[in-house]
């Protein structure tokens, strides 16, 4: 019963997250769709939390050790790579004043 309560609670959170995601993302202009992709890419690097939990289990088998270790490596690459690439991209988007030009006749 307790387990089910938690499950229902988690499903609620899941659905709210979907709605929030749609709400926030539909405001992103197409100009920034690539940074949006790579930014969300970095965010799903949060899977590193799960990978650390697996690798952090006490009394684990050699199999779990190897799989967990690999998972942390992959997830860490995802996190660091994702945020760095996004930062590099966003750094480039600049709004300068347009160069002065004579009025077109």
């Amino acid at each position, binding site marked *: 019963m307790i387990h089910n309560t938690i*499950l229902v609670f*988690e499903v609620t*959170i*899941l659905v709210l*997250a*979907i709605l929030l*995601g749609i709400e*926030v993302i539909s*405001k992103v202009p*197409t100009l*920034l*769709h*690539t*940074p*949006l*992709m790579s*930014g969300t890419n*970095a*965010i*799903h*690097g*949060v*899977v590193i939390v*799960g*990978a*650390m939990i*697996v690798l*952090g*289990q*006490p009394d*684990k*088998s050699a*199999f779990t*050790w190897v*799989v*967990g270790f*690999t998972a*942390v*490596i*992959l997830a*860490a*690459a995802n*996190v*660091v*790579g*994702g945020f*760095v*690439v*996004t*930062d*590099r991209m*966003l750094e*480039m*988007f*600049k709004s*300068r*004043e347009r160069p002065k*030009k*004579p009025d*077109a006749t």
Partner: protein
Amino acid sequence: MSYNLSNLLYLITIVAFVLALRYLSNPAQARRGNQIGAAGMLVAIVVTWIKVGSTSWWAIALAMLIGGSFGAVAARKVRMTAMPQMVALFNGVGGGAAALIALAELHRVLPPPGEPTVDISLGIVLSGLIGSISFAGSMVAFAKLQELIGGRPITYVGQQFVNGALFVAALGCAVALVAGVQDEWLLWVTIAASLLFGVLFVLPIGGADMPVVISLLNAFTGIAVALGGFELENNVLIVSGMLVGASGTLLTLMMSRAMNRSVANVLFGAFGKVTVSAADVAASNGGQSVRSANAEDVAVMLAYAHKVVFVPGYGLAVAQAQHDVRQLADLLEAKGVEVSYAIHPVAGRMPGHMNVLLAEANVPYPQLQEMDDANPEFSRTDVAVVVGANDVVNPDARSNQGSPIYGMPILNVDDAQTVVVLKRSMNPGFAGVENPLFYNPKTVMLFGDAKDSIDKLIADVKNL
């Protein structure tokens, strides 16, 4: 660290991620948002690192160092033109991590033969399945974009049947595991079938449809992460994973809408089978042939125009010509020409690809116009310069019901006084679809590598 405390701290992470996405609605704040997101991630990592306890601190630190340095170096070194494959790669490793977590968890809980069965949640099995598809699919997408394998669609007879069978096999084994048939080989079959499905499912999708596939795989990884969060009862995984899942799904739908095709059509349509021969097109255009020009003529046209619009496509990325285009635009502006860029939503190989390339060349973003803003402007444009774009300016999409791209909204460059098309040769574009724009009397073709052509134009404009 107590369960409640760690979950409260994870809440900081969740808020940071939401802010990161919220800030992306404004280019001026977006970078700050990304930094907030990274800080939130750091909180989650530190909290988890403390939480898992001292037994594994060093193993975790070592693995993070290895993965993190790879990620940092790759992300620093990659050229902006190679961005789509980099995003695919990072997406793949994320999906791979989710799949490995599911694998480790299932391996741990699965009982040895003969023992009573245990409760296995559908979530964790699906997380392994979807994560594997995302991993394998992203790696194929990476290989295609990096041109390790051919970018053209690979099709064979019975392809959809094979893919369907694989997917059903993976799903069947997954359900059997949950239902209580708990042999470990079922787990391995699930993973293997999902990996193979991921490869075969992306293999036939090529070039111009890549933006859709990449956003879809992004959504897959997010969903795999969220499902893994259910098993680990971890809110930060559920919420963050689902934010990404929703975002990826939304982008996928937007991309397919921009091509006026259904997602299913993009994924299973194996685009590019229908080809109209050049002769037919020439005939339908009153037998006119292509008009080719030299750089000097085009330079004169550009320099004495009032308004010039550049229309970039994937060819711009291939030729790495974004800096040269910017230089040419600067020269023209110095001569009093009004310059802007018209960006089709699916130009390039990922959503918003062209915007990033031009931003790299320091084009100020107010000059980058979306399709709906750009189209009304063409009628008062003197010269539209198409640089390495093809399908997104193909008038067949408006008028030829037989064309495979019929119905796709396009940039109406043929409303301009003159259209200059920079193109390597008369070979049809990726989709293998002929483009009557090239035979339009308003159009002149400037053949050659886009970068070389632009460089010549720069030299000639300077000499005027």
